[in-house]
């Protein structure tokens, strides 16, 4: 069953078109990488789905609802949790307060308090370092810890899908490994759908799953990450041998 369906999405910034007519559908429980060189439109596509930068045309369906043009907070309430690029933790809040922010929207549900405490403990067990620093200011965490915190924050909203923009940005390779290990483990445990934007296709090849390669605002390649790997087509997309 398709969780997310995009039809003919375009994103424009003034006269610049960042995403040109992207259509795709993502199955429930999949791991999907969107890769591609700088300026390919990966982040723009993600931000359009999350409602941060509305798409200028096309339709987006999530979990059976049409979310085209909806506000980001409304899309988040439906179970689409986005982790924006640059690990923007709420710097002046404590780690625990950061984790609590996303739970507010479910506060009217029955048993919210117990559920939240349970979720909090689950996040702490996945990322023990966060528990250690739970009362510390989030802005003072290291880059890797901040990445774990934003993933934890996304988990606290009990999403169907987590969309992450460049989780490896500015992280040491071994820290990136740790982040991915836990992400993949969480995915299988919680039956999450992952939508990950990465500039390099290497990570997708390592982790596996579906890989979409973008270039010039379009999807130029769609396949199994391990099979597509580092094929000539991928290299062509990055370096553009075929284009000129």
């Amino acid at each position: 069953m398709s969780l997310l369906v995009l039809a003919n999405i375009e994103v424009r910034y003034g006269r610049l078109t960042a995403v040109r007519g992207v259509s795709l559908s993502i199955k429930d429980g999949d791991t999907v990488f969107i890769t591609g060189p700088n300026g390919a439109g990966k982040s723009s596509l993600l931000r359009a789905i999350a409602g941060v930068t509305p798409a200028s045309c096309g339709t987006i369906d999530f979990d059976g609802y049409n979310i085209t043009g909806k506000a980001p907070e409304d899309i988040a309430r439906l179970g689409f949790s986005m982790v924006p690029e640059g690990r923007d933790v709420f710097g002046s809040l404590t780690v625990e307060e950061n984790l609590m922010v996303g739970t507010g929207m479910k506060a009217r549900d029955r048993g919210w308090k117990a559920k939240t405490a349970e979720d909090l403990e689950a996040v702490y067990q996945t990322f023990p370092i966060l528990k250690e620093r739970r009362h510390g200011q989030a802005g003072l965490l290291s880059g890797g810890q901040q990445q774990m915190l934003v993933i934890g924050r996304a988990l606290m909203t009990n999403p169907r899908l987590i969309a992450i923009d460049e989780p490896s940005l500015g992280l040491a390779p071994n820290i990136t490994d740790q982040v991915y290990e836990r992400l993949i483990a969480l995915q299988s445990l919680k039956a999450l759908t992952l939508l990950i934007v990465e500039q390099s296709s290497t990570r997708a090849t390592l982790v596996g799953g579906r890989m979409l390669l973008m270039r010039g605002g379009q999807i130029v390649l769609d396949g199994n990450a391990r099979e597509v790997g580092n094929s000539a087509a991928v290299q062509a997309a990055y370096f553009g041998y075929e284009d000129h």
Partner: protein
Amino acid sequence: MTDASLSTLPETLANPRKPAPFALARKTIITPILLSLLVLAIAALTVMLGSRPFNQAMIDIMVRVVLVVGLYIFIGNSGVLSFGHIGFTCLGAYAAAWLTINPLMKKASLPGLPSFLLEARLPYWQSAIIAALFAGFAALIFGKVLMRLSGIAASIATFAVLAMINTIYSNWESVTGATSSVVGIPIVRTLWPYAGAAVVAIFIAWGHAISRSGLALRAARDEPTAAAASGVDIPRERLVAFTISGAIMGLGGAAMAHSIGVVTPDTFYLGLTFITLSMLVVGGMGSLSGAVIGVLLLSALIQALRWLEAGVPLGSTTFALPKGLQEIALGVIMIVILALRPAGLIGNREITLFRVNRNK
């Protein structure tokens, strides 16, 4: 970092342990308690000293604590600077005047008031509560429109609110007495009601800051995009804070009216806006402790400068600063503090009993 051997999740994740009750309230309640104790200690000391002028100076300080804490509720938590809040103080002060002045006087000086206000003569504490509700309601109406804006646009729009309220109150002769003073407001000279209002304001501010709404608002202050992506409806949370802070500003206005017995529209305009915002910024915009301590420090400073301007006897001669130096010195001191500590004296922290290491 943690050990890198964690290739799978711990077994326990499938069946999480009994959750520890999260207790943000219990952890942070020490801050409003300490701040209230500070306020009450100052009040007790003043009452023991029994000096009339000192008592009046302390009443002014308590009123300012209410006002600056009111500002903090919106500005501190949302990060949006507001120049308009003193407008709600104006609304509160006039509402208190309407509700408490002797009906005979009102019929002569403010004949345009509706009859239920003309006949009203409430005790000061009832008028203060109604004034706060009235100002809060006004803030809700204005905020409904304003809270869609952010950044400098929102700040300028709040300034327009201040100008609007001032213009209405300066011209509506039959209801507000226009620019002339409205006199005859019963004066309350005991310090305790004012200290009580300050404590109430402090606890309301704390309760709001740790509430879900306050938490969401503080998150949106740090990173609006990420907050929206976490499901935070930013305009709504801003409106909640704007309304509560408007009500506290109204309470402060009522307290001010009862402390001096006279209101004019210009009492609640640029001068008061400047001094209250300065106190908040110097103390530290992002913290309740900063708001309270900013008031205490700057008030003490202003008092000291006034005292020096009036002249201090030094042996046989009198040492006095030239008139007007008070404003200049205050300005210089503020610039120095902000240059050295841009986040204010307290910064983003709160005072606690045990020095909680937020940087751990």
